[in-house]
């Protein structure tokens, strides 16, 4: 009689508060226990949705439009699964990564808890205003994690991130205000039949504002300026969480609105995200190929990989495109978390973060380098990996509708990704300079990164269940 849908929101809130009560630096064990339960809940929910279709929960028993609805369909179940399966290994990693009494960890665990709660609540909400609150919860927690205990560069990056996030959510909020003004409701379910192609102009503007705000939060090129400094300067576990999950949250919301209430309006607009996505792929990859810093490289790679998510928009008429987008979101989530974790190990071990300083790590940290390589395979979209399946689905959807241009971008993007992934691997395989010291790193760090990297590859051998779950109800 436990409804996983609700507990996925309440549980992280509960352990976050508990961790806060326990005091600074405490709460790791509580968090890990909570996250393990959440992972189980997410599987449970996926199972229920896979068997019984979409679920709707009217909070307070009121139901839309008076109350707030929580809704879970295949898409939300996939995202919830992704979030919990990335978060748990990441928590284990973070526990080993942070020295016990460093300032940056004083409130790390409650912050992670609020972030997870925000993400889960966002994936489950079917109410535009409630989504705004969850967006803020996610955004502020993410900014806090970037800033916590950092130096000037880190705080500056956090501020830049904060202003981007606030600008984005304010635009989204205005969109919600206009929608309420036009229709008198903010419930997605109620809105869907009301919002038609002959909607008043203000609704178009609302849609545009919400889209722009969310694109800013997703860091789609050219709104990506805040992402590389923030993701590169945060501690590795935080970077992993931000790149793997947080940017996906606003992408999920765009997709949800695009396929949901705004579907009648978006037809002509579909090329815009696609073109920006193509721009992101080229610009992000190019910057990743150029930057001398390891974590900056990984962060720019996120900018590029987010571009793929937006290539699907002109193709959404076929189910293959949605599958491609979701597969890419999952593949990138797992792989990028693993890559940031591996980068964190490399930086900890070598004591510096230049790509050029990695010579010889292949001999000393083979497992970590292997994880980095596996994650790279996914990002390059090479088989057998989830990234490859995503690319396959995308190209197939593009060719099936005659948009060979999109297929070309996807193929070229894979090659560019190889450019920056192999930049690192090549350096790592070089012979080590003489008198070369590498600090010992905890085993947990290496193995958790490896687990996620392996997952991103193995998913490429078995995507059927995930796609079946996604298909288990596209509309709430």
């Amino acid at each position: 009689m436990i409804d996983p849908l609700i507990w996925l929101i309440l549980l992280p809130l509960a352990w976050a508060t508990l961790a806060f009560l326990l005091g600074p630096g405490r709460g790791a064990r509580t968090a890990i226990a909570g996250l393990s339960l959440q992972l189980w809940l997410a599987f449970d929910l996926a199972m229920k949705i896979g068997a019984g279709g979409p679920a709707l929960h009217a909070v307070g028993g009121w139901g839309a439009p008076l109350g707030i609805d929580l809704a879970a369909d295949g898409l939300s179940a996939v995202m919830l699964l992704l979030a919990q399966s990335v978060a748990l290994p990441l928590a284990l990693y973070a526990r080993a990564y942070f020295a016990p009494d460093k300032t940056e960890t004083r409130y790390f665990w409650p912050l992670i808890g609020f972030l997870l709660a925000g993400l889960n609540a966002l994936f489950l909400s079917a109410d535009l205003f409630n989504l705004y609150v969850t967006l803020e919860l996610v955004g502020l927690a993410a900014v806090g994690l970037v800033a916590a205990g950092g130096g000037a560069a880190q705080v500056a990056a956090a501020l830049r991130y904060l202003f981007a996030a606030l600008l984005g959510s304010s635009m989204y909020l205005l969109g919600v205000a206009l929608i309420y003004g036009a229709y008198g409701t903010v419930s997605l379910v109620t809105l869907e039949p009301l919002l038609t192609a002959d909607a008043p102009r203000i609704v178009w503007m609302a849609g545009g504002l919400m889209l722009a705000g969310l694109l800013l939060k997703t860091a789609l090129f050219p709104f990506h300026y805040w992402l590389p400094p923030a993701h590169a300067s945060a501690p590795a576990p935080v970077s992993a969480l931000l790149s793997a999950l947080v940017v996906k949250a606003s992408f999920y919301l765009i997709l949800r609105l695009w396929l949901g209430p705004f579907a009648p309006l978006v037809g002509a607009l579909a090329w815009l995200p696609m073109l920006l996505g193509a721009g992101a792929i080229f610009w992000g990859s190019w910057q990743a190929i150029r930057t001398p810093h390891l974590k900056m490289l990984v962060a720019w790679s996120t900018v590029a990989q987010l571009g793929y998510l937006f290539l699907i928009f002109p193709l959404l008429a076929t189910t293959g495109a949605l599958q491609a987008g979701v597969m890419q979101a999952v593949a990138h989530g797992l792989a990028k978390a693993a890559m940031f974790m591996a980068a964190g190990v490399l930086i900890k071990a070598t004591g510096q973060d230049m790509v050029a300083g990695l010579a010889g790590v292949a001999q000393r940290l083979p497992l970590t380098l292997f994880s980095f390589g596996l994650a790279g395979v996914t990002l390059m979209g090479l088989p057998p990996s989830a990234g490859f399946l995503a690319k396959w689905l995308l190209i197939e959807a593009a060719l099936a509708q005659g948009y060979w241009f999109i297929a070309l971008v996807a193929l070229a993007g894979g090659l560019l990704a190889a450019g920056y992934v192999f930049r690192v691997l090549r350096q790592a395989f070089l012979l080590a300079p003489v008198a070369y010291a590498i600090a010992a790193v905890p085993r947990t760090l290496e193995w958790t990164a490896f687990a996620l990297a392996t997952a991103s590859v193995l998913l490429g051998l078995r995507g059927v269940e995930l796609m079946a779950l996604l298909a288990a109800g596209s509309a709430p």
Partner: protein
Amino acid sequence: MKTAAIVIGAAAFAATMIAALLDLPPSAIHLPRLVDANLPVSGVTHPVTAVLLNFRGYDTMLEIGVLLLALLIVLAVGTHDGADAAPTADPMLQTFARLAASLMALVAVYLLWAGARQPGGAFQAGAVLAAAAVLLHLAGVLPAWREPGALLRSGLAAGFLVFLFVAMALLSQGTLLQYPHAAAGSLILLIEFALTISLGLILAGLFLFLSGGQGSDS
């Protein structure tokens, strides 16, 4: 160049939107009627409170989470320099501040109590409490806060915890935050009471932690 483009863009945006606002037809759904219709079973008689704590209580719960989160981040960003220079003011002012603060506490209690029926409620009451704390600080009675102890942490989290606890307890009936009819009023009051204390502490904390942390107060 960039400046001009942004200013023109903003102006064009405003103009287009105002034009679009002016010919907006009435909305299809009229929620106030629904609110009125359900007000009798909400446990309170003031519609805004009913929306805040019952119809859309889930929003409010998350929002308290956001506030607590902001406080957490203020703490996490770090407060380890700057001497704790407690401002000293003259005794007259201190006496006045104490008096004013007691009055404000009374106002807060009233606001909380009145919130069920008329404008007011936890938010306003909490804000008034916080203002009282800020006033006391400015008058030199209340020093700035540093690292919170276990008691203060419990106080800060109490409102959110009570809210969360009520939500969990009510889940035994199957639905999130669905109050039983008979108990709705008292449950809402309980939540509001806890919220008032926590809101007051958090809002005051946002000021007092920041103030005690990095600022070298003059």
